[in-house]
């Protein structure tokens, strides 16, 4: 039992970088992301007896992190965008124009991505995905992750970001389109 707990403790610590990277993508503040990661690891160590092994250690930790990050966002209140990032630039989706022709039909065939199946392929795929997520502007990434990860209602996200529902719709569209394009370019060479 003691040996099992020790092994689990070691495994928990191994996921610190992955937890921190996701926390940082959402919170965009190094100190706060580090705190959320630390609290997640502590909660996991304190609750180690409750880990039943039904989920993997990693998914268990990610579920704890999700709760911690929701708490952080609620405590910190409204998002303060970095001064370098301009909402109008983030709302500008004319960059996608080249994807479509004059009739708004896709300009080029869409190859279905080769399904990443082997361990090596999946690793490479998620490396590209993580890089694509990191490249989203802060506000766009925050909106996207609040929606897709934390499952906040669009109304809550609008008020957190202080943008209109219509602008939030554009930010979420942009995030999804940009991720699709990014994976198209970054992954589909395989």
């Amino acid at each position, binding site marked *: 039992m003691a040996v099992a707990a020790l092994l689990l403790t070691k495994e928990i610590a191994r996921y610190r970088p992955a937890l921190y990277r996701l926390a940082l993508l959402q919170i965009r503040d190094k100190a706060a992301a580090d705190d959320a990661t630390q609290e997640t690891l502590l909660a996991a160590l304190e609750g180690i007896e409750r880990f039943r092994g039904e989920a993997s250690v990693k998914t268990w930790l990610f579920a704890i992190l999700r709760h911690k990050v929701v708490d952080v966002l609620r405590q910190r209140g409204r998002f303060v965008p970095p001064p370098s990032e301009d909402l109008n630039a983030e709302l500008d989706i004319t960059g996608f124009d080249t994807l479509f022709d004059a009739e*708004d*039909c896709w300009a080029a065939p869409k190859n279905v991505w080769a399904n990443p199946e082997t361990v090596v392929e999946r690793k490479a795929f998620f490396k590209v995905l*993580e890089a694509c997520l990191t490249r989203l502007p802060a506000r766009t990434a925050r909106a996207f992750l609040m929606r897709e990860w934390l499952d906040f209602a*669009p109304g809550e996200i609008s008020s957190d970001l202080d943008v209109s529902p219509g602008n939030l719709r554009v930010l979420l569209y942009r995030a999804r389109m940009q991720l699709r394009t990014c994976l198209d370019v970054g992954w589909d060479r395989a």
Partner: protein
Amino acid sequence: MTDKGKVTCRDTTWLVSDARDRPLTESERASLADHIAECSLCQGASKQFGALFREVGAYLKGEAPDTEA
């Protein structure tokens, strides 16, 4: 269906995104399905979006493999 319900490829990308945030109306769902059924480019794009949402979900749940070396 009437021309009024016809949508472009670009319109379908908006509907695919909106569907993640709110239920589509009956007519939006019909327009989307009809367009995709007839458009091979959108069939490819919609498989890409499906894969994107599935893999993003896996990543966010901690089901993805570690990305560090």
